[in-house]
């Protein structure tokens, strides 16, 4: 599969087919990349250039970091960046711990109550409780305006749980037995046998959690006061909904932030994902598939 050579039985495609494929592939790549390029370029251009060009720039003539300096001066964007980073870090760690322990217990045959517990959990996937009861629960637990409201209600994801459980089940039984014979308890087996063998699955599930926490905004809009907002919710309010970024000084937020500043916030919200992506994407196929096939 991974060779450059065409297998002997396959005939050389006609030039027209080759050309059509090439066009399609280039189109896919451009459709994904051009929007990002426009955002990045606009954020790096001067506001005058953006206005002269009608609101966007494909290639800035005189790149400047002014927009970034404007938003990273300790105002609401800087603060929300810290909130997002913190929630992502703490949330991903907590979620991984809970998901791994649960998946491990459910992957071992003969754990007390294993089957009913699994059904209990899968049922929540089939029948989610709903938005209103979820909101009232968070409210009655006194979690309003606390960062825990962004983490605890979405702590374990059933899909991720099933992926990990499938992966754990794929580990050869002999390894478990060998560890047992050496006198290892469940924690020891999990820590020194299962986890080192599951790096690909852990990387994928960890990425899924981290992306979910980084991207979440809806719960923040429900549960948090605006001075505690994470980055995505700030982005939603000031860029998508089009209120002014400087509303603390102007009042009602009627003045739109300059285009370059809006685009700079977009870039800041996207960059962390672009940074971790290349390191993790080689695990995607492996991690996702072992989970999907096993379940």
């Amino acid at each position, binding site marked *: 599969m991974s060779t450059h050579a065409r297998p002997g039985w396959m005939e050389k495609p006609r030039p027209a087919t080759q050309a059509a494929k090439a066009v399609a592939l280039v189109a896919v790549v451009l459709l994904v990349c051009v929007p990002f390029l426009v955002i990045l370029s606009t954020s790096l251009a001067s506001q005058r250039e953006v206005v002269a060009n009608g609101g966007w720039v494909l290639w800035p003539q005189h790149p400047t970091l002014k927009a970034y300096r404007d938003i990273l001066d300790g105002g609401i964007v800087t603060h929300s960046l810290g909130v997002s980073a913190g929630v992502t870090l703490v949330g991903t760690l907590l979620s991984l711990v809970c998901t791994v322990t649960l998946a491990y217990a459910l992957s071992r045959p003969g754990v007390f109550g294993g089957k009913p517990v699994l059904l209990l959990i899968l049922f929540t996937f089939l029948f989610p*409780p709903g938005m209103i*009861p979820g909101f009232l629960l968070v409210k009655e637990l006194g979690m309003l305006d606390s960062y825990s409201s962004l983490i605890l209600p979405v702590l374990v994801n059933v899909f991720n749980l099933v992926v990990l459980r499938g992966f754990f089940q794929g580990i050869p039984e002999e390894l478990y037995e060998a560890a047992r014979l050496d006198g290892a308890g469940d924690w020891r087996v999990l820590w020194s046998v299962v986890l080192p063998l599951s790096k690909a699955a852990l990387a994928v599930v960890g990425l899924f959690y981290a992306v979910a926490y980084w991207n979440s905004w809806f719960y923040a809009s429900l549960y948090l006061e605006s001075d505690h907002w994470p980055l995505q919710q700030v982005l939603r309010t000031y860029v998508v909904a089009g209120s002014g970024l400087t509303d603390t000084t102007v009042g009602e937020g009627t003045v739109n932030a300059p285009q370059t500043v809006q685009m700079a916030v977009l870039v800041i919200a996207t960059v962390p994902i672009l940074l971790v992506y290349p390191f993790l994407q080689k695990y995607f196929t492996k991690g996702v598939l072992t989970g999907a096939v096993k379940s």
Partner: protein
Amino acid sequence: MLPGLAYFLVFHYGALLGNVIAFKDYVPFDGVWGSRWVGLDNFRRMFEDGEFWDAVLNTLWIAVLQIVFYFPVPLALALLLHSLTRSSVRRFVQSVAYLPHFISWVIVVALFQQVLGDTGMVNSYLGDAGLHTVDIIGNPDAFTPLVVAQVIWKDAGWGTIIFLAALSQVDEQQYEAAAIDGAGPWRRFWHVTLPAIRAVIVLLLIMRLGDILSVGFEQMLLQRDAVGPQAAEIIDTFVYYQGLVGGDYGFAAAAGLFKGVVGALLVYAANKVAHRLGEQGVYR
């Protein structure tokens, strides 16, 4: 396993109990248990509410458009990628195509505004070329094509992953044997490739049908203000606006419960159909 289990008990089963307010006249001051029972009043109101049925129709319409226009795209893209003999090109295009899946809806909507908005890239090209500019973002008539295009942009690449997996399971020798028997590319596609991935196609299609009451909540909520509720109201946004914005909690919970029950029945039925057709289904 206890913390994970506790999570499910509190945040899923605890919340599930909260659905009792669908049968109550919920007053925040009295709490969930102190509020007055009203039987099926909330449901009666819901079934008589024209806006509720508009939201249901919108949801179904967008879901159907997604099945017709979105569903074939990942499949076509997967076939295209699979046909590449040069693995470095394939891997590069795959990496690029997966990427938008990891970008939040907030950013996707902002990107679309930037490219297709009234001062966006496309319109400024049209304007420079002396053509009519088109208002796509704020136009209710263009809304459904727009949201389907957004879903394609965001998730079509990611959707190829499962088809590519199915394609990579196909035994090379089958192709070889077919080629020796004189089957051309099309015959090989028809008699080897398609049967091999049929199970996955049927499965995903059935699951999508089972999930037809759900179309992107965040995606709609983000853009509802721009085009108005006539075009963008789906069941989930209806629940959100009635309950969390309007404060009519019992009524909104009833609508949410309706969606949950019908949705679960649909998924269950879809899975049954999958079994009937001899496919694996999603569970068991």
